[in-house]
């Protein structure tokens, strides 16, 4: 390995171990340009909803939140 490749590999491993130590790298799911997985779930009125059923004329928005309770 050249010096540059060795240094970059070391930096990458260092960054990875720091991330593992803190375990705090936020996971953000599918990237811009990627499709999201289809899903099926009941809403608050007991109606079954899927990606298709919540889709609007111009697209849709999905908001993931932690809890409606606490």
């Amino acid at each position, binding site marked *: 390995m050249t010096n540059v490749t060795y240094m970059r590999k070391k930096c990458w491993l260092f960054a990875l171990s720091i991330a593992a130590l803190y375990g705090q790298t*936020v996971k953000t799911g599918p990237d*811009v340009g*990627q499709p999201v997985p289809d899903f099926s779930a*009941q809403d608050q009125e007991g109606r079954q909803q899927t990606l298709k059923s919540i*889709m609007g004329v111009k697209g849709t928005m999905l908001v*993931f*939140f932690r809890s*409606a309770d606490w």
Partner: protein
Amino acid sequence: MAAISYDSVAVLKNFADRQHITYSLLSDPESKIIHAFDILNETVPKGTAQYGIPYPGTFILDTQGKVIAKYFEDDYRERISASDILVRQFGKSVDVQGDVVETKHLRLATGASTPTARPGHRIVLSLEIDLKPKMHVYSPGVQGYIPIEWKLEAGTLAKLHAFEYPPSHQMRLKAINETVPVYQGHLRINREITFGPENALKPLVSSSGELILKGSLQYQACDDKKCFIPQTVPLEWRFHFEGLDRERTPADLQRKPR
């Protein structure tokens, strides 16, 4: 649109009724959807009632189900506001009007994407500058003149985000053989702030429930003949403070560890 959480249908119904929410709140109690999207927060200890929550965030999708934009924060206590998405993603104008201040050289109008300050919310502030006839001011990067500078005294009230001044145009000052970057006529600057946590905001709220963010615009104006003394104009953005919703669902609906 839809919102998704690991809450039961009963918890979501209780919340929707209390908050008068008409859009769909989807129940994902086994976190299957959260898992399929790969946003399960695995730093939460298993066996607790909180295990199963996602990293909170928003996806904007096209009609094919492809992601066109996404908003996630490093800190779960911070969240982009709906008003910010409407402005920066969908081009809505920043339309909550504040004060208009006038000087000899220009008129300033403050604005915000929302009239409400909520802990952790990221919103958009605007400053509109209307220069009087024949007046120009200088853009950042100019040499030898004081450029415009929009300052905010955020303190613990808010986090300030990096922002850009609009593009300027080059003006030729024939008399002194100089070309300088200037603004003339009308310009508008938008910038984002994220309100601090509730315990930082509460002490700053007035007895009438108002939260004030102070700032200023520094500028040096010149007309076609001479330059004027640099000015600093004090400005204010006023909000109505709304604290976090701490109301819980009835105890019998609350999630138990699984």
